[in-house]
C-alpha cells in the first residue's frame, strides 16, 4: 500500500508548489477537458510541452511522474489492446480470428497517449499540493455552490478528518494484526476465501474503535465550539498572486494551441 506514488505529495517550495490550490485545481480541470479537444497526434505537442514546462518548474522529473503510471499499467494496456483489435479497417496483421488494423493501431496509440497525459497531469496537481491545501482549495471553490445545497464546508471537514485519522487507523490496524498474529492468526497463506476470513478479526475491533473515536472526536469538536461552517473564520487565507496569473496565461496559450490544432489545421 505504501508503494503507490500517484498522488503522493512531495513537499517543496517551487513556483508550482506555491500556486494557489484553486489555480491548480482549475487548471487541472481545463487540462483534462483540453485533452479531449485534441483530435490528432500533432495536437499533443501542446499538452506535452505544458507538462514538461510544469515538471521543470516544479522540480519533479517526468520520469518520476511516469513511474506513477505503473499501478495503472493494466488499464493502459487494456485500452490499447481493445482499440487495436476491435476497430475495423485496413488489416495489417491477422492472428487467427483476430485482426489488427491500421485504424486500430492509430486509435489505440492515440487513446493511450491521452490516458497517460490525463494521469500525469492530475498527478502533477497532487504531487505539488499538500492534502490540507487541496482541501482548502476545494472548499473555497465549492463555496459559491453552497447556496444551491452543496455541502462545501462539510465535505472539506470530512476530508480533513479522514486525512487526520488515516495514519492513526493504520497504526491501529498494525497493532491489531500483530496482536492477532501473536495468538497464531495467519494472514498471508491460504486461498482467497481463507484470507478474507482472516481479515474479519481485524476489521471488527478496528470498526469498534473507529466508532468510539468518532464519538469522542465529535464531543471534543463540540467542546471547541464547532457548529459547522457558519461564521467560521480561517487562520490561513488563500491568496492569488502574479504567479497564479502567469499560470492562467500559460493555460490560455495551451487552450489556444489545442483549439487551433483541432479547428484550424
Amino acid at each position: 500500500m505504501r508503494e503507490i506514488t500517484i498522488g503522493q505529495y512531495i513537499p517543496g517550495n517551487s513556483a508550482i508548489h506555491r500556486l494557489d490550490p484553486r489555480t491548480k485545481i482549475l487548471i487541472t480541470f481545463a487540462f483534462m477537458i483540453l485533452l479531449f479537444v485534441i483530435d490528432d497526434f500533432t495536437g499533443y505537442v501542446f499538452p506535452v510541452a505544458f507538462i514538461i514546462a510544469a515538471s521543470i518548474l516544479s522540480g519533479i522529473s517526468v520520469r518520476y511522474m511516469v513511474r506513477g503510471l505503473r499501478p495503472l499499467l493494466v488499464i493502459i494496456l487494456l485500452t490499447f489492446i481493445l482499440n487495436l483489435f476491435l476497430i475495423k479497417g485496413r488489416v495489417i496483421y491477422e492472428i487467427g480470428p483476430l485482426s489488427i488494423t491500421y485504424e486500430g493501431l492509430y486509435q489505440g496509440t492515440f487513446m493511450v497517449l491521452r490516458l497517460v497525459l490525463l494521469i500525469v497531469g492530475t498527478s502533477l496537481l497532487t504531487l505539488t499540493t499538500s492534502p490540507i491545501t487541496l482541501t482548502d482549495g476545494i472548499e473555497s471553490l465549492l463555496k459559491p455552490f453552497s447556496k444551491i445545497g452543496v455541502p462545501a464546508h462539510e465535505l472539506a471537514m470530512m476530508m480533513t478528518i479522514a486525512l487526520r485519522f488515516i495514519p492513526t487507523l493504520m497504526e491501529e490496524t498494525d497493532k491489531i494484526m500483530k496482536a492477532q498474529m501473536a495468538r497464531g492468526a495467519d494472514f498471508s497463506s491460504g486461498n482467497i476465501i481463507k484470507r478474507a476470513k482472516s481479515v474479519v478479526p481485524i476489521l471488527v475491533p478496528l470498526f469498534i474503535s473507529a466508532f468510539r473515536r468518532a464519538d469522542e472526536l465529535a464531543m471534543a469538536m463540540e467542546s471547541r465550539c464547532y457548529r459547522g461552517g457558519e461564521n467560521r473564520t480561517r487562520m490561513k487565507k488563500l491568496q492569488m498572486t502574479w504567479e497564479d496569473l502567469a499560470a492562467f496565461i500559460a493555460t490560455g496559450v495551451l487552450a489556444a494551441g489545442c483549439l487551433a490544432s483541432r479547428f484550424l489545421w
Partner: protein
Amino acid sequence: MAAEIVAEGVCYQYPQAADMALKDINLRIRKGEFVAIIGPNGSGKSTLAKLFNGLFVPTKGKVTVDGLDTRDRNNIWKIRQKAGMVFQNPDNQIVATMVEEDVAFGPENLGVPPEEIRKRVYEALEIVELTEFAQKPPHLLSGGQKQRVAIAGVIAMRPDYIILDEPTAMLDPVGRKEVINTVKRLNKEEGKTIVLITHFMEEAVQADRVIVMDKGRVVMMGTPREIFSQVEELKAIGLDVPQVTELAHRLRRWGLKVRGDILTIDEMVECLCPLL
C-alpha cells in the same frame, strides 16, 4: 456576575440508564483555583466534567458558569469558550493534520479574525512549549506532546477555566510529567482555573483543593492534606493514597510518631530525620 462555576443540586441521568449517574451535587469552583477531582471508576467524574461546559445539561438542578446557566442554549457557545475541555485520549481530540491548524480550530470556530488567530496560536504553542512543532503532523508527536497540543487548542480560545478529564491516563511517566507541569504553569502563571480529574494521587496532591466522588456523589472535599490524612475512608471507597502518605500511615500504626498528613517525600524526610 460571579466568577465561578457553580453546581446546585445537580442530578444527571443518562438516557435509557436505570440509575442516576450524578446525585445531588453541590459545589463551587472559584476563579484561579486548582481543583482535583478523584474517585473510583464509574463514580461520575467524567459526567460532571461534561456538565461544566454544557456538553450535558443537568436532569435536575443547575450549573452556572460565571452566572450563565448551561440550560439556556443561547449561552452554550459563550460557556464553552469560557470553560475549555481536554479529554483523556489525545488521538481522539486532534482535528487537523498540522499542529498549528489544530490549535487554530477553536478560535476559527469562534469567528476570530485571521491575524488574531495566528497570534493566539503562537502564544498558545509557546505556553505549552511546542513552538518548533507548529508545522508537524500531530501523529508524529509523542503522547505527552499531543496532549499539550490539545491543551494549546483550548488555551487559544482564551478560556478562564480549563477542565481536564484524566489527561495523563494514557501517557508514560515522562509524558505525564510534561502535562502536569504544563497544567501547573497554566494555573500559577496564566491564572487559569484548573479542574483536573485524575486517577493519580500524586497529581491530586498538587492541587489547592481535592473533591472526592463515589457512586455519583461528592463524598469528601478539602485541601489535599485534609483529604489524604483520611487513609481508611479513602481505602473504603477503593481509592489509593500517595505512596508516602501510605507509608506514614503504616509507620503510625507501628507506633512511630510521624504525622498522618504527609504528602511529599520531603515532608517524610523531615519527619523521619529527628527520629533517627
